[in-house]
């Protein structure tokens, strides 16, 4: 028990200090449950205890949830079921302290109470939280393809209004203190310094419970109304998550059973579903993705990185303003410039609106919004003080070359110049520069505030501090960063080109536009490749695919497809021009019938949708393997992160490398060789597979 709890009884109050001795935060594990049982026995047996206060002795976390690592290493789902049952049994005992022993348990929460942490708090009789940005409550299990297995699907809908509970359960979103109070999730919000005093006062004088205070309107507050809400939620979840993610439906099942057949039946269902989800490949891959994102911070060495206080952004388009926004949000000084004054004003508006939204949501105060916004400086001015200037102007080599030279004259000799480009070779951008070694690539994804990936493109000539500082800035901006080499198309653009190219090939062969897109959505991509081309702009796609990347592909038997250039010449640019593969002017965005003229009109033999999707997705996967083989990326882990976070590769498939692992190296090779026979040399599998196949070693040991 001493490894987890520090007990201190003062009068009739037992203070339980949560303090897991072997970790930086408190987590839930089998060992912890054993200790918890001892604790419960102690409380039940000690008649002098009238109330119990659970409080964390860790900095800024209450309980961070289950120990994900230990959890993911659990061999069998039976173990997961067992964990859930045990957890629920103990939490029920905790909850019953009031009924059976007239003892009140108060959760005094400062910092993160997530997942199992919130479930413990929900089993307590009162919850007090601190008014602090560090304090967040939530059940993020769904993000890992799981469900809250500690009674969360049962207690939350009983504590807050059903739609609110479903929102938390199905989005995994964090709730801040004031909102938590309003929704009845917590009973009091107090200043961080006063948490202990408030808890002690609540223990000795009582505190009115807010659980169940937010009721549904009378016409919904009955069995039928709840059914309606649940069925609406089920429908919405299916639309949003698609068929690949089972967790939302399971969560709804648990809530439904609990509400119709009682708490007992509810937790039983919860434990069963928990086990099922734990065993699913979906969850395994999502858990791995989560841990991979955490670990990527450690993989990027930053011992030579400089501190960044102030950055410059040239180009105030969507990218530039996005980069400015994520930097301001972290308290950096940002000077943004653009030759187009209107663009500058638009950028200012955008950033302002984004902070206003945060203020409205209660994520920051109006004053904090002012503070962030004060870091924004518009127009020309002092670039000398900037630690890094990132250019985000139009993708045009000459323009970027001139700009870089111009910037060099205006910045200090310690300033890094970063180029935000998706494909232009950094060494070419730096070709005319005086200090090419201080020029680095930072490939952001649009829209920057939403997209979690940053690809830092390193030239061989870059000293460590330059690349590391760029990585550090990306991490500060909240991005997951992968470092890639300055080779044609870097990593993400290159594998995207292979994928889009294959989609165009299929179109050429007679597959339908919507047929292709549906096949890839069925594979798990959020949008199909042709709709994606319409979004980014067919001109951009043409620019990239016929440029540098084409050279690499040609050697491997890709035929470069001239059709994109023709589309651009005819003004079919995608969504921005009103029409591309789809017609955006018509309702429901039908396929653009004009497209027939550009592609083979003969309708080929209709292909199996699975086959079509696989063939196009495999083109991306195989290209990723080539990138690893050629040293463009540093590790399969980085490769998976880049594809999932940058391009929307289906997260539940774990990324290209885990995908190959799970399919089996030799099985994948065979598939590729089959495709090569059928569709051409470009499907020839990467050579590293042969070696790996021979040695029987996967990309991830234990994969």
């Amino acid at each position, binding site marked *: 028990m001493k490894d987890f709890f520090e007990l201190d009884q003062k009068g009739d109050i037992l203070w339980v200090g949560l303090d897991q001795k072997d970790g930086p935060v408190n987590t839930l594990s089998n060992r912890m449950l054993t200790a918890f049982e001892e604790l419960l026995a102690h409380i039940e047996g000690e008649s002098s205890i009238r109330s119990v206060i659970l409080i964390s002795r860790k900095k800024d976390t209450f309980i961070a949830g289950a120990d994900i690592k230990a959890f993911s290493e659990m061999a069998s789902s039976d173990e997961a079921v067992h964990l859930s049952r045990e957890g629920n049994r103990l939490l029920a005992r905790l909850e019953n302290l009031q009924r059976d022993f007239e003892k009140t348990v108060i959760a005094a929460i400062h910092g993160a109470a997530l997942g199992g942490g919130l479930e413990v708090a929900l089993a307590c009789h009162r919850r007090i939280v601190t008014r602090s940005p560090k304090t967040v409550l939530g059940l993020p299990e769904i993000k890992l393809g799981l469900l809250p297995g500690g009674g969360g699907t049962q207690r939350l809908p009983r504590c807050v209004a059903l739609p609110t509970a479903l929102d938390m359960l199905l989005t995994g979103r964090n709730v801040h203190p004031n909102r938590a109070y309003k929704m009845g999730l917590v009973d009091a919000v107090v200043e961080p310094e006063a948490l202990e005093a408030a808890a002690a006062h609540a223990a000795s004088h009582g505190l009115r419970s807010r659980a169940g205070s937010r009721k549904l309107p009378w016409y919904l507050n009955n069995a039928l109304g709840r059914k309606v809400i649940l069925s609406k939620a089920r429908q919405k979840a299916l639309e949003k998550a698609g068929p690949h993610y089972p967790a939302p439906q399971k969560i709804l099942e648990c809530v439904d059973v609990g509400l119709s057949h009682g708490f007992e039946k509810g937790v039983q269902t919860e434990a069963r579903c928990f086990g099922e989800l734990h065993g699913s490949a979906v969850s395994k891959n999502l858990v791995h993705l989560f841990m991979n994102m955490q670990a990527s911070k450690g993989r990027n060495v930053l011992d030579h990185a400089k501190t960044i*206080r*102030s950055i410059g952004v040239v180009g105030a388009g969507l990218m530039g303003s996005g980069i400015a926004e994520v930097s301001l949000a972290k*308290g950096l*000084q940002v*000077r943004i410039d653009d030759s187009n*004054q209107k663009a500058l*004003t638009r950028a*200012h*508006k955008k950033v*302002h609106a984004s902070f*206003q939204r945060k203020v409205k949501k209660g994520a920051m105060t109006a*004053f904090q919004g*002012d*503070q*962030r916004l*004060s*870091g924004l*400086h*518009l*127009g020309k*001015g*002092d670039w*000398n*003080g*900037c630690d890094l200037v990132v250019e985000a102007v139009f993708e045009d080599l000459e323009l970027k070359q001139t700009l870089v030279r111009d910037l060099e004259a205006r910045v200090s000799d310690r300033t890094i110049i970063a180029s935000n480009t998706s494909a232009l070779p950094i060494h070419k951008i730096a070709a005319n520069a005086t200090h090419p070694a201080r020029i680095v690539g930072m490939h952001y994804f649009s829209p920057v505030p939403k997209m979690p990936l940053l690809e830092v493109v390193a030239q061989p000539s870059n000293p460590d501090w330059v690349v590391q500082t760029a990585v550090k800035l990306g991490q500060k901006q909240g991005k997951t960063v992968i470092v890639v080499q300055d080779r044609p198309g870097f990593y993400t653009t290159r594998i995207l080109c292979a994928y889009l190219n294959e989609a165009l090939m299929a179109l050429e062969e007679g597959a339908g536009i919507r047929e292709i897109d549906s096949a890839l959505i069925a594979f798990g991509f959020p949008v199909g490749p042709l709709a994606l081309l319409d979004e980014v702009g067919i001109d951009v796609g043409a620019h990239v695919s016929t440029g540098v990347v084409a050279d690499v592909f040609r050697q491997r038997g890709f035929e470069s497809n001239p059709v994109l250039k023709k589309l651009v010449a005819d003004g079919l640019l995608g969504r921005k021009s009103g029409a591309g593969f789809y017609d955006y002017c018509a309702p429901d965005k039908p396929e653009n019938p004009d497209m027939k003229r550009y592609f083979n009109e003969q309708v080929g033999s209709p292909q199996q949708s699975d086959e079509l999707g696989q063939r196009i997705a495999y083109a991306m996967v195989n290209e990723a393997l080539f990138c690893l083989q050629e040293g463009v990326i540093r590790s399969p882990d980085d490769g998976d992160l880049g594809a999932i976070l940058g391009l929307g590769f289906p997260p539940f498939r774990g990324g290209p490398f885990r995908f190959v692992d799970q399919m089996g190296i030799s099985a994948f090779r065979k598939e590729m060789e089959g495709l090569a026979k059928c569709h051409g040399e470009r499907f020839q599998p990467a050579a590293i597979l042969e070696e790996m196949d021979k040695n029987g070693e996967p990309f991830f040991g234990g994969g």
Partner: protein
Amino acid sequence: MTEREVVLVDGVRTPFLRSGTAFADLDNYQLARIAISALIGKTGIAPEAIGSVIYGNVIANTRNPNVARDGMLGAGLDPSTPAFSVSQACISANRAAAISADMIRTGQIDVAIAGGVECLSDAPIGHSKAFRKRLQALQKAKGVGGMFKVFKGFKFKELKPDVPAIAEFSTGLTMGQDCDRLAARFGVSRDEQDAFAERSHKLAAKAWEDGLLSDEVCRAQLPPKFEDIDRDNGYRGDTSLDKLAALRPAFVKPHGTVTAGNASFLTDGAANVLLMSRSKAEELGYDSSVVLRHYVFSGQNPDGELLLGPAYSAAACLSQTGMKLEEIEVFEFHEAFAGQVLANLKCMESKTYSKDLLGLESALGTVPMDRLNTLGGSLSLGHPFGATGARLLNTARNRLIRENGRYALIAACAAGGMGSAMLLERRTV
């Protein structure tokens, strides 16, 4: 002493706008925040290097009694930098700069922001004393009966709002009345005043046209429209003597000489300068050529000499530094009223007045008009009370550099019968 010399590194202000125009929705805090943020952006100074922020402010609102602190925190400066606000009427920013310079000189800090703000669009309008008393009592009242008692004897005239007046507290005279009095005493005619006002507006318009002020002024974009606000809106380049002559006296009727046309208007704006010890400026690579050499604050009898501060303080500043008026190449005098400036100039060039009032042996000297306020002044650019001193300092600095001069003198008058003069010296070594 020289190693702790104080240099004026740079400065910036918001556009000065007539009250009730584009800054009407802002307040002192927001304007101060915008000006401080602009100074950080313009100079690139690291916030943690700043040792102090002092802001002048005259008409404070109840939300931000210490607008310097609220403004600098809102601008994202480091909380470890202390900040306070000073109030010395229209020379508040001068006082802010003087205290900052003293702190640098004595080695307490190396870097300071000094400035001031006034948002007269947001002047607090209060309740009458009688009504305030009732409101206070209401907070303690118990029950409906208690509340009823509080309002016993209530008269509707108690609801008349208490608007801040631009009047001298000690004499009850408005500033305009006092200016008329001063003009009469020094024989400044209406025509002279109108001509000076016209000069100010024309010079301001020309300075903006020639781009000489744009570097001193930051751009503001405010929600919801985010239109560029990047220049002052008070100057009237198309004014003429005829137009000015047509205006009726605003304060003393019918014979008075001060009109809306030859007086400064109510203005919203903020201004600030960055001060450093010379060694720090050199270390950080800033222009350290302009030194804040000396400053003097004066006090006169508010009953009669209310606006004569510039003459008194300039005389003291020059005599304490052993300088002669003729050596000054750049004059930046605050223009509260055309009549006030001209009366001060007459006082300075008159042997009698210089002797009787300023206690000098001979006349202080004549200020050449081609050296005075050549980019316009408070009459045309505007006069946000708390901010004007910082505008004068920054403009004087920029003029010194641009005109390749050595000495600049700024001077201003203030309610309460006070004056401020500050001497800048540009080193060209």
